[in-house]
């Protein structure tokens, strides 16, 4: 794992002073998200793709599909696998090598949001029960790291899935068709710093946060995934606050993605 690089106390104290006034170093309110930019269909070698810019954080998500055997306990469903690469290009705090615990956690949380949120109609990806199903890989590639990979990656994954074409022709399984989707899970992450809750943290804010919470919701307003991170703790009121922000933000992002994918 990368070495801990301390944000100088001076920076930390400054951030705390600002938070006390309800504002952040980049001028945002505590519950405000950074500017979000989503582009889809940019990698033609992938069946689906999206590039997400959330403030200075930049993430690329690619979807690859192939035909393979289903899992023994779900013989009539397609297989979903999620992987995240925190490549050294994205930050001096990332090292080369196989995914470390940070990359694994991000992949698993994004996977949870997509799977539990039932984004994909996995039953519709069955070709021959017990023998052949569609295998779907979600690969998250972090290009530039300024905090909040959970949200950038989940938004990227959903946007990529929304524009994915199943390559049936290539595998001699008929004509290509749009990936069948059911729901639209969107994640929203917040951190707790000195008793205040900040939504969509930057790298500096994450470095001094005591605790982090990611909440994924679907369009019905229900929760589908959650993950708490870092050593600190949340009070329940804080959790509910984040859930409410997540719900609202989820709605906004879903309508953005609907525009982009059309």
């Amino acid at each position, binding site marked *: 794992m990368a070495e801990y690089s301390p944000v100088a106390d001076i920076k930390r104290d400054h951030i705390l002073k600002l938070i006390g006034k309800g504002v952040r170093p980049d001028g945002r309110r505590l519950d405000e998200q950074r500017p979000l930019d989503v582009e889809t269909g940019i990698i*033609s*070698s992938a069946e689906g793709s999206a590039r997400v810019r959330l403030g*200075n954080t930049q993430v690329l998500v690619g979807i690859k599909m192939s035909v393979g055997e289903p899992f023994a306990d779900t013989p009539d469903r397609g297989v979903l696998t999620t*992987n995240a690469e925190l490549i*050294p*290009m994205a930050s001096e705090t990332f090292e080369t090598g196989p995914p470390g615990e940070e990359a694994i956690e991000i992949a698993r949380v994004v996977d949870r949001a997509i799977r539990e949120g039932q984004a994909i109609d996995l039953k519709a990806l069955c070709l021959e029960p017990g023998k052949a199903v569609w295998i779907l*890989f979600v*690969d998250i590639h972090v290009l*530039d790291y300024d905090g909040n990979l959970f949200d950038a990656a989940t938004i990227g994954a959903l946007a990529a899935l929304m524009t994915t074409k199943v390559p049936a022709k290539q595998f001699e399984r008929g004509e290509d068709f749009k990936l069948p989707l059911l729901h639209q899970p969107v994640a929203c992450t917040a951190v707790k710093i000195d008793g205040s809750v900040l939504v969509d943290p930057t790298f500096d804010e994450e470095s001094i946060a005591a605790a982090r919470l990611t909440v994924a919701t679907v369009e019905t307003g229900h929760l589908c995934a959650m993950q708490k991170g870092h050593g600190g703790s949340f009070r329940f009121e804080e959790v509910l606050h984040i859930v409410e922000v997540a719900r609202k933000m989820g709605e906004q992002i879903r309508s953005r993605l609907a525009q982009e994918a059309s």
Partner: protein
Amino acid sequence: METDLKLIDENGRRLDGRRPDELRPLRIEAGVLRRADGSAYVEWGLNKIYAAVYGPRECHPRHLQNPQRALVQCRYNMASFSVGDRKRPGPDRRSQEISKIISEALEHVVFTEFFPRTSIDVYIEVVEANAGTRCAGLTAASVALADAGVPMKGLVASCAAGKVANTVVLDLTKEEDNFGQADIPFGLVPRTGEIVLLQMDGDLSIEEFTQGVEMATRACHQIHELQKEALRRRYGVAAGEQLAAGPEEAA
């Protein structure tokens, strides 16, 4: 590999309509990433490649430190979704070889003796691939190094030539690489004419090889102009725009 595809037609045009000595559409952008000290993005035909530079910085692992010069450590990597059949993440032997030859090409132009005991880390990520990725990667890395302020003798431009249907051609696509007869990845310092990257595989006569290198050399000079334009655009400057060198000289 055999194919029924007409790699070169009766009019001398290739599958994508290009003439034998024509480059694919190429676009270069400098300074595309915020965290890295320097960066560049290249779209070359269907290739899409990022390059990022960190450094000079403390050399890790420490036992590789050189007391007299900086190390140039390049890591070339292909994203799993960059190719038709998904590639398993992580370096394979091909990526390791390419990383090595690109490091060596760049080492030649960087003034490494100015930064003893440090490492200049260059990362090349191929997010979409269609042949010629090592050349596009080296081209991008060179721009990223300039964008990071690393002192160099000059930029490096890189392009491959090859042979397809018994004709020497420039800048092969994936199909041409698969069904062609030879491939010559080539990298040059346009200012001096020094060749810093050269590989070859396939079957070529010496005349054909010479033809290929001449084509690639001319292409590298074209590419060099695009690299320079990208850096000028990044610094918001049109060629010829006058700037202030320092406080003594401007209001």
